[in-house]
């Protein structure tokens, strides 16, 4: 023991503490794109539950509704029953493959523009800037001792964040119930407890993630960047600093320095760092903290324009582009860059699932039938010596109007009756009325002679009795005692 320790001298802490990020305001192409996407995504999130969609007298009028209480999922003209949950699974698979496709085509565009964490953080940052001022003012305020001004600004900021967070949590619950009704209930204090609890939890997470944790969610909590870094290759678009153009960095006027020796375009103004929402230095190369939002591109372009140098010192580039450019070769056209086996494969999978789902949706049956053979007792001897079996038939009427159905039997020459009609009025078919968008069930009986196989396969067919028609079929069995008592 006590051998010389090869470990470098410790700093005293095992983990790096958070460096506070105060992103500076910037304007430019990508900032405007982010504005547009932010407005669009927030509008979709907040307004979707309020869209109305008339479905007739028997179904809710909300365009998008996850009706957990009645186990229905409504999305515009599509209504999904629990037994059709595979459509939701298909949608989730499409979303996953879609992310892969976007990543292989344009890199971490999801992270930079559309991810809720990015959108809400962006919104919170703007509110912060509105109340506390831009980067420098925020830095000053952060260092300033607690006083009236700091207290007022901090209170204002946190209160505004809390309002946004509460609205965000509040909007979520409207996807699960009729929005106007729930809004009235919520305000009057009559909404279900789960609604208040959900709003509370989502308010807290929005406030904490968007206001306090911000880039730490992306860097430490989110699994997606880790998955993405496994998917990146030399064709992946990422924010790249053209080091071959920018280096060596020199501060001050270029003209005066060029006389002294080589000088790159980078003036080391650190505008790219100041505007970065995750607080990284893009000039250090690709890193997990870069969500490729492009704000540093906007900042750098502004600077380059101001000092009269070509823009795009920082830009969206793939590794291949960078190699070509460094060697002075012509750049690959964007279309050729997009079309490579991986993007094509992802697109085909994505489109294939989408087409299969559309096809299935177009052809899905709106009638379903399940047959449950009575098992206790399996058979009943009747007074005339016949053997009776019973079946519980459930008819799913998935149309949004009441329908009448006829149940008939195949595979056996026997008459059907139900509890109401009695055996005296047994017939070839039994008519059952089903309410709109409901399951109708009927206990039916059929009897035949004791002679025959112990187990006979039979089919029940349920046919709709209106102009539109349609039918469904289910298999069951008729069973006889092996020895007659």
């Amino acid at each position, binding site marked *: *023991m006590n*051998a010389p*320790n090869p*470990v470098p001298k*410790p700093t*005293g802490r*095992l983990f790096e503490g958070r460096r506070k990020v105060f992103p500076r305001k910037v304007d430019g192409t990508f900032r405007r794109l982010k504005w547009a996407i932010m407005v669009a995504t927030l509008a979709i999130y907040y307004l979707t539950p309020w869209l109305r969609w008339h479905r007739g007298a028997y179904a809710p009028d909300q365009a998008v509704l996850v009706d957990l209480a009645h186990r229905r999922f409504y999305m515009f003209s599509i209504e999904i029953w629990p037994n059709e949950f595979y459509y939701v699974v298909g949608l989730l698979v499409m979303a996953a493959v879609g992310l892969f496709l976007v990543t292989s085509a344009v890199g971490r565009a999801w992270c930079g523009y559309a991810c809720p964490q990015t959108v809400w953080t962006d919104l919170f940052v703007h509110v912060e800037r509105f109340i506390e001022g831009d980067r420098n003012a925020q830095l000053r305020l952060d260092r300033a001792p607690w006083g009236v001004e700091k207290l007022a600004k901090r209170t204002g900021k946190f209160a505004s964040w809390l309002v946004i967070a509460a609205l965000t949590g509040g909007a979520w619950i409207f996807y699960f119930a009729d929005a106007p009704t729930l809004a009235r209930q919520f305000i009057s204090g009559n909404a279900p407890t789960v609604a208040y609890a959900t709003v509370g939890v989502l308010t807290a997470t929005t406030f904490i993630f968007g206001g306090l944790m911000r880039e730490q969610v992306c860097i430490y909590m989110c699994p997606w960047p880790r998955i993405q870094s496994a998917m990146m290759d030399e064709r992946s678009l990422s924010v790249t600093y053209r080091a071959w153009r920018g280096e060596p960095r020199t501060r001050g006027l270029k003209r005066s320095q060029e006389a002294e020796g080589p000088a790159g375009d980078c003036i080391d103004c650190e505008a790219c760092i100041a505007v970065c929402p995750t607080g990284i230095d893009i000039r250090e190369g690709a890193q997990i903290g870069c969500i490729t939002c492009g704000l540093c591109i906007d900042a750098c372009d502004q600077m380059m324009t101001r000092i009269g140098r070509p823009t795009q010192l920082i830009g969206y580039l793939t590794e291949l582009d960078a190699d070509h450019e460094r060697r002075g070769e012509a750049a690959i056209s964007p279309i050729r860059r997009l079309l490579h086996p991986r993007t094509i494969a992802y697109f085909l999978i994505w489109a294939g699932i989408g087409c299969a789902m559309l096809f299935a949706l177009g052809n899905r049956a709106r009638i379903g039938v399940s047959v449950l053979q009575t*098992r*206790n*007792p399996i058979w*009943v*001897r*009747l*007074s*005339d*010596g016949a053997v*009776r079996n*019973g079946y519980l038939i459930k008819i799913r009427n998935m149309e949004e109007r009441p329908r009448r159905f006829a149940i008939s039997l195949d595979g056996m020459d026997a008459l059907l009756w139900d*509890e*109401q009609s*009695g*055996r005296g009025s047994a017939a070839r078919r039994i008519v059952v009325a089903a309410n709109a968008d409901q399951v109708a069930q009927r*206990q039916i*009986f059929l009897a035949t002679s004791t002679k025959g196989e112990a187990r006979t396969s039979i089919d029940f067919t349920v046919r709709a009795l209106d102009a539109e028609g349609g039918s469904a079929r289910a298999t069951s069995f008729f069973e006889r005692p092996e020895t007659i*008592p």
Partner: protein
Amino acid sequence: MSDEKRVDEATGTETVGHEWDGIEELDTPMPRWWLITLFGTIIFAIGYCFAYPSIPLLHSSTAGYLGWTSHGQLDAELAADHARKAPILAAIARTPIERIADDPRLLAAAQEGGKAAFKVNCTQCHGSGAAGAKGYPNLNDDDWLWGGDIKAIHQTLQHGVRYPGDDATRMSQMPAFGRDGILKAEQIDDVVSYVRFLSHQEPFNISARRGKEIFAQNCAACHGAEGKGNRQLGAPNLTDAIWLYGGDRQTITETVTNARYGIMPAWGQRLDPVTVKMLALYVHSLGGGEKLPPADPAK
């Protein structure tokens, strides 16, 4: 192994003082959040012990500040459940039994309630699927000793069968033809042959021919001249395929010799009227329920 504690350079933490093959263990203190959680649970546990029954005594336990008991909780839950069911049970109580089927929701609720009551009170004899057993009728079939319409079933359930404590009970008694010496063994043999012929189990042979005579004199009064039974008297139909005790020679001989005396309790004395009603509706729904006879216009 050296037992010298020292401060580790890389982390600034003291070691526990043991060393095996150059491997040492740091004596890192528990994280603060962990300790706070630990002490928090201890404080919670102390509070819990005061609030709830917790410390076992000789015959019971400490009562707890909140006065909570599992019995009390059960009572409250049951009371809530009774309150929930009360309106529909009241509706069943005030609706005449033959009118309940007019309201499908009331009927469904009553049948569900009857099903639950059946599981508790009836399955011991009639089986969980009401398929019966020897001596206990199958309630799924279409053969009824005392009538299969809803009113008849309700009457049978309410007052029982041959139940001593109920004046309105379903009452009948078949003579023990053999045991009491009314018929001789050969005569019983003949009448069994005839009964087996009636139910299409044997041809009309000489024995059955003799039995027909005996049947007309001794049995037809209750079972009818054609052996089709009489529901007023609870006399079974002897021509059908269903036998309460068995249709083979030996069993019928035993029945004629010693008679049978099956008993069912008068459930009206044991259960509340709504439960009896629900039971009747459930039994009626098992597949053999008959329609009420049309009302007599003379009355």
